[in-house]
């Protein structure tokens, strides 16, 4: 059979490559959680960040949400010539982190989060009221759809540049 004229040559060629890779030890695997890479500046991380001072309660975010996971209520009367946001509730169990609400917000009051590892034991713990959505040390906003913030955030680690080993 002509197919098997030089049997073993293709096999040897493949094994030569695996041998070469074994000796060169490519710098790819990340030793998470001991080693953490810098995330993207535009990360659409779990949990939104809400800035109470900027929010006017216009509910554009709630209208733009494909899943209907944002619930918002304002006061009936004007307080200091503006409506007070009484309730701002995001169900992160329904949210798919598409970022359309952040893109729609006309006052830059809503940001995607930069955090991760936000698992919870109960579904109810994923529904966050406005007190829990505010910016804090472990709840930092990302620059998704906020290009003016991009330069301040650390650069993303890119595997194209093989940066995994240096950042241990």
């Amino acid at each position, binding site marked *: 059979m002509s197919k098997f004229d030089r049997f073993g040559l293709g096999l040897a060629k*493949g094994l030569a490559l695996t041998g070469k890779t074994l000796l060169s030890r490519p710098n790819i695997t990340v030793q998470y959680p001991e080693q953490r890479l810098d995330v993207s500046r535009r990360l659409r*991380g779990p949990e939104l960040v809400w800035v109470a001072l900027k929010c006017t309660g216009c509910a554009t975010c709630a209208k733009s949400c494909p899943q209907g996971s944002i619930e918002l209520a304002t006061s009936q009367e004007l307080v200091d010539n503006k409506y007070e946001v009484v309730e701002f509730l995001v169900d992160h169990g329904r949210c798919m982190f598409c970022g359309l609400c952040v893109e729609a917000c006309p006052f830059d009051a809503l940001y995607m989060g930069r955090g991760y590892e936000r698992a919870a034991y109960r579904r109810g713990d994923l529904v966050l009221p406005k007190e829990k959505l505010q910016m804090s040390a472990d709840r930092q906003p990302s620059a998704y759809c906020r290009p003016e913030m991009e330069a301040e955030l650390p650069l993303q680690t890119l595997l194209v540049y093989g940066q995994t080993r240096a950042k241990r």
Partner: protein
Amino acid sequence: MAIRTQPVSINIGPQHPSTHGVFRLRVTFDGEVIIGLEPIFGYLHRGKEKLAEARTYTQFIPITDRADYLASMSNNWGYCLAVERLAGIELPERAEYIRVLVGEMMRISNHLMAVGFFLNDCGAFFTPLLYMYREREKLLDLFDMLCGQRLNYNYMRIGGVSQDLPVEFLPALKKFVQEMPGYIDEYEQLLTTNEILLARSKGVGVLSPEQAVNASVSGPVLRACGVEWDIRRADPYSIYPQLEFDIPTGIQGDTYDRFYLRIQEMRQSVRILQQAITGIEQLPHGVYRAHVLSLVRPPKGEVYSRIESPKGELGYYIVSDGGVSPWRCRMRGPSQLNLTALRDMVLGWKLADLIIILGSIDIVMGEVDR
């Protein structure tokens, strides 16, 4: 003359590692030879087409991501293109270039998965796949930089893309494009001349061009039969007419051709990426999205538009009644129609061949069931 035995029916799936998702096959065997096959769809049905009717045109974009989750950028593109054609929206040139860049990156990333899992099905357990994951990881990093997520991008918008390229994107992509041909050589060195792979896949699962066209197969599976049909040439969209690339075709239409064709297509995608990078560098920074109202209301009418997704012809048929959401939105998923040709390919082959023939079609159940 072979002795015929009593036919035996075996269920493969829906939970089986080789069915690439929740897919069930009811196979009838005569001894070890397949004499009948009935694919059963629907385990991953999420009613996407109905969901579109309850959402605005923009709100449906993140849901298209979830159809073919290994090539979600192409799904975004197909849907946005259909709505743009329906509403008559012209795109800025920069947006077209960005779309071609991410579309071809998506093709490479998808083919890396397809080839890797095909080799995995052939018995080369995870070693070649991990070589391909290495490059896919680099591409996912770049997508992450663009739009903040690694799998469900939701990057395209009606009239353009959601954000401009970051300044550090193009240098990184250039480095990737420079290195990629070397890596593709590595993949070829690994297994394309491997005797065991040739014995397993050469001449196995042959699909004739006539059968393929009759079953309305598209994409790499059709081109492997020797039919030169690529939507990027046959029904051009975006800036593809200005770009130079070849359409690789197979000879026999067997499993090996389908595998090797994807490697050749990756080389062509790298070629397109090189040209698109030089093109986009000459354009000024700035307009990446046409001025479109946030609540798009296309005029009354219907449109069918199609793009060449990594898996084949991805079409969207949208009927508008002039309102804010589609009256009807139909997806033509390439995986589903490619899967209908499975019976033609496997009859007369054995159980072990069924797994690699299924692997060579490159299906994603999210797109089959929608």
